[in-house]
């Protein structure tokens, strides 16, 4: 039980930090696709007889590279969707070659945080530290290319390289978290708390801290509730994340309603939910038309 708390705390910190950039860059789809692709890798690793963490890592990075290189020309969302189904199809093929795998599928998809052993802690901690280090090194160019891609390009930041680097960080974060919270729910944790944090504060540093704090609360509450009710932890992570996002948006809407002039429009770009000042084109589109 103690291991569960330790590992869940590490996962929440990673998800909070990496998730902030996922939300900022609008990479929700890759954040969903990479864990699912990694899941296929775990199935393959069982088939070949190597450690499932290796399979997870290899397939997560493969998915990231596939999305990055296919998306370089052509549409990002199409590239992501096709990379995702290709990985899942490989997973289905691997699964059809193994037997007696059904309970493990469930735990890889939905997580098994209560069954984490002490030997599993070390690789998770190592990969997590690597992720945080990568984000720290990439921090300034990543932030700049996410918020103002044109200015970043003008300053000599290669946005396509940043994109690939970020996808690989996402893949590392995925590989360490999938065995713990499951392929399907690391995604919720990377979207809900960071989105709520972004709605609450426009400053990047504060938003990252808040995002980590919300992710921690989400995971701890989910573990406690899951322990109490014996229901799957994923259900609580998904629900609390969605709730956090809803509250964040509600708070943001209420605040912009009160202050007609937003006090800090410096950091909010057009993508922030309920952003106070969207560009003209979007504002026009938002207006209700007579039907």
């Amino acid at each position, binding site marked *: 039980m103690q291991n569960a708390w330790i590992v869940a705390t590490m996962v929440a910190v990673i998800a909070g930090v990496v998730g902030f950039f996922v939300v900022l*860059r*609008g990479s*929700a*789809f890759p*954040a*969903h696709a990479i864990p699912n692709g990694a899941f296929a890798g775990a199935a393959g690793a069982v088939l070949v007889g190597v450690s499932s963490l290796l399979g997870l890592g290899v397939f997560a990075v493969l998915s990231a590279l596939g999305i990055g290189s*296919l*998306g370089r*020309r*052509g*549409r*990002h*969302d*199409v590239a992501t*969707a*096709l990379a*995702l*189904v*290709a990985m*899942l*199809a*490989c997973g*289905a*093929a691997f*699964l*059809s*070659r193994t037997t007696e795998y*059904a*309970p493990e*599928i*469930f735990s890889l*998809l*939905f997580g098994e945080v209560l069954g984490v052993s002490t030997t599993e802690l070390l690789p998770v901690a190592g990969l997590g530290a690597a992720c945080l280090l990568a984000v720290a090194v990439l921090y300034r160019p990543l932030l700049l290319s996410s918020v103002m*891609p044109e200015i970043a390009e003008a300053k000599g930041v290669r946005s396509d390289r940043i994109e690939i680097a970020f996808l690989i960080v996402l893949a590392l974060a995925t590989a360490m978290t999938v065995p713990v919270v499951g392929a*399907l*729910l690391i*995604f*919720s944790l990377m*979207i*809900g708390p960071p*989105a709520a944090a972004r709605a609450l504060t426009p400053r990047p540093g504060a938003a990252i801290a808040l995002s980590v704090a919300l992710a921690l609360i989400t995971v701890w509450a989910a573990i406690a509730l899951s322990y109490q009710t014996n*229901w*799957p932890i*994923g*259900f*609580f*992570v*998904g*629900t609390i*994340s*969605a709730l956090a*996002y809803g509250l964040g948006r509600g708070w943001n809407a209420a605040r912009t309603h009160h202050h007609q002039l937003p006090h800090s429009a410096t950091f909010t770009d057009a*993508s922030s*939910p309920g952003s106070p000042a*969207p560009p003209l084109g979007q504002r*026009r*589109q*938002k207006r209700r*038309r007579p*039907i």
Partner: protein
Amino acid sequence: MGWLIEPGFFASAQVHTALVIGAAAALVSAVVGVFTVIRGQSFGGHALTDASATGGSGSLLAGVNPLLGFVVGAVTAAGAMEAIGVRHARGRDLATGIVLGASIGLASLFLYLDTTATATTGATQQILFGSIFAPAPGTVPIVAGFGAASLAIILALYRPLLLTSISGDLAAARGVPVRLVGLAYMLALALAVALSSLAIGAILSTALLIGPPATALHATRRAGRALIGAAGLGIACTWIGVLLAYDSAHWFSDGNGLPVSFFIVAVIFLAYLISDLTTHRATRRSTAAGRTGALVGDRDPRAAR
């Protein structure tokens, strides 16, 4: 021919059903999918497969017809995505993600309750991966009905839908009710996705929705031709995949082939890669010759976001 088509392929009743259901799903997915690709809603289209699976696992629990669960799940999620109603692409992806996360959470609860309450261990795999070879009895007519409904919505709205998909501002200026058309389109998408993920599984549903339309849109800039091309390509990929899966039973000594979804996705992915590489080369040549403009326009990654 013997090496290409293993004996008994055309005589098998299972294969007949797979070919018919697969073709129907491929047709509906391709027609709806052309608009999904143009509108940049691949994520939404994929998220609806998971949402419909949530409905499906809920229906197992409630003991009602799975198809009802699939359709209710997909339509509810589509409604929620539209209700959050963020217009620009990044925010829309986020809203889609939130709905997706919540519905996956619900699915995990339903599946947990299913497995503890009824001890159906195959439920997870059945819902997630589906099987074109083993459709539930009585599925075919219902699938055909919902497929026809989805096609009818798309064809009835063809022109305004195309206009809103290409330029929302232009459509609004022409007096097209953009939100209403968007809502009707989401309904068509939800129906198409629900029926195809029930009939052929979640993986194939996304693959057929995105792959053939994206490939066809590489080859032609005209929507009408893209629709026909995508439909033809989708059906061809499905049939080739079914054939390979049937043959694959003879490739292994234990007589168990690889899943049909693997082959169909492999063929679709290959087709997309080929079209991607050839159009890339073609655009590079035409830009080298000094002819830039419309053809290259939407390959700008920033425009695609």
